[in-house]
């Protein structure tokens, strides 16, 4: 059973990657070999890794905030990270400082949302999402203002707010790859212990695991993975929300499995969305990838609210 599911996942991933290479404005033949090798393949790698980072960060956000509706987007962390990145770019700082600026401003956003929703020993789930969405609106407006005022271009506003994989070079791919893989390895190895964070704070403090440490590192990991993906591909909404949900539905709630499969299927979902955004318009124009994920993810969000409200918030 286990062997078959692993085999199934491998085959599915090969299929997703092959589809990513095949579909697009330029058809797959010997004349276009170079375009595909130098433009499409790196883009696919970027989309795949960033998708993994988004899925993993969503799993971590949901765990530490004990809230199944949390991800980088709904907590406002993604848009506050984007604000930091936009400011760093406007100031003309070098490329490796962009994720750092994004991380710091994302962390600030997370702390604000956390403080607003703190209630006794726990967090108010509804306030958390409300605060996140308000933060998202405010920071998005500031980004739009900065871009409009300084760049006088609407195109870059769309990139930051809707996401897209237009920026890739070896350095960026390496930064994204190594930060995602190192967080993934750490959280996967410690996956079993992370389950302690699913319990209420008081119970978790007496289960024999350093709750405080794992909570802090999960916060930092979730915010950093969000920041790094936002820095190079803008805000891609809802991937981190949908994927851990589906994973828990199929594989159960054990964090070891949730971490592993959220990363894999986050990568798949993002790559599929990017493939669709590249090939859905017949003339060869492309859509920002966030349009696809927002339509799918927004619908999914409403579905969860309608159908599973009583099950997801165990209060």
């Amino acid at each position, binding site marked *: 059973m286990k062997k078959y599911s692993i085999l199934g996942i491998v085959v599915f991933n090969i299929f997703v990657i092959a589809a990513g290479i095949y579909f697009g404005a330029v058809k797959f033949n010997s004349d276009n070999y170079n375009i595909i090798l130098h433009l499409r393949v790196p883009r696919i790698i970027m989309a795949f890794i960033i998708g993994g980072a988004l899925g993993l960060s969503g799993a971590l956000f*949901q*765990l530490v905030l*004990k*809230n*199944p509706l949390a991800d980088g987007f709904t907590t406002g962390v993604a848009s506050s990270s984007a604000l930091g990145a936009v400011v760093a770019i406007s100031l003309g700082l070098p490329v490796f400082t962009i994720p750092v600026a994004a991380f710091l401003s994302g962390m600030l956003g997370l702390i604000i949302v956390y403080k607003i929703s703190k209630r006794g020993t726990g967090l108010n789930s509804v306030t958390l999402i409300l605060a996140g969405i308000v933060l998202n609106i405010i920071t998005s407006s500031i980004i739009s203002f900065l871009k409009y005022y300084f760049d006088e271009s609407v195109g870059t506003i769309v990139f930051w707010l809707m996401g897209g994989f237009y920026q890739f070079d070896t350095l960026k791919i390496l930064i994204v790859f190594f930060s995602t893989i190192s967080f993934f390895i750490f959280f996967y*190895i*410690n*996956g*079993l*212990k992370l*389950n*302690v964070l*699913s*319990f*209420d*704070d*008081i*119970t978790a*403090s*007496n*289960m*024999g*695991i*350093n*709750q405080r440490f794992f909570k802090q590192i999960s916060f930092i990991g979730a915010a950093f993975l969000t920041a790094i993906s936002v820095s190079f591909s803008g805000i891609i909404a809802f991937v981190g929300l949908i994927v851990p949900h589906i994973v*828990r539905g199929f594989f*159960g*709630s*054990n964090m070891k499995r949730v971490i592993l499969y959220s990363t894999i299927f986050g990568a798949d979902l993002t790559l599929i969305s990017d493939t669709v955004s590249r090939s859905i318009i017949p003339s060869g124009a492309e859509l920002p990838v966030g349009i696809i994920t927002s339509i799918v993810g927004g619908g999914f969000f409403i579905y969860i609210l309608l159908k599973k409200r009583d*099950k997801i918030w*165990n*209060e």
Partner: protein
Amino acid sequence: MNSVYTIKNLKFSYGKFQLFIENFKIFKNDKIAILGENGCGKSTLLNILSAYYIEYIGDILFFNKNLKFFNEKERAKKLSYLSQFATISFNYTIYETILFGRFPYLKGEKFSEEDYRKTNLLLKKFNLEKYRNREFFTLSGGEKRKVMVARTLNQETEVVLLDEPTSMVDIKFSLFILDYISKLNSTVIASIHDINLALQFFQRFIFMKNGKIIFDLCRDKINEEVLYETYEVRFNRIGSYFIPDY
């Protein structure tokens, strides 16, 4: 000599509420019931004894060592705690939830055969075998409490703290759980609301009011005056039961 907890001049404030305990000892294998009206400090005291609240003034020695000096793993092998609102945010199976009680014994990244064996044994004892693969969120309030009690006891500790173990639990299981913990070879400290239920299973009774311990009595010293002082409700004694007088 055999003191498990030694409390000296403990002061703790939480908002407007203040807890003050001058001198207090808990001995090995004590079976203590904490009683008192709502908001008298029962949960606060248990949260302090479990080292969840650490911003207190005064000293608490736990096995002759400052409670604050224990690390999580060390402490969780000696002390388990069922909090008042123990809950879990994601839909684990009952088996997984109870298995997580074995975390203090985790070596490396996997539970041992012994951990699985003990979890299975506890499922059997608690008559939860048929719920083994049920999801936690599908259980009723009382069943959830039962699972959380089982998780706490799966930690197999010398000291067991329970904050209202019988809340939301039906009478049959209340009797089962109180009987079970009263026979444990551990020090048990539990807050409980039902005085008659507590009288059947505990030996030492602590009555709290406004953040202070007002009585610390053994079972046969409890009378109507003690209960009146504690609850401001008149009780009549009928046989070995106390019935509130409306």
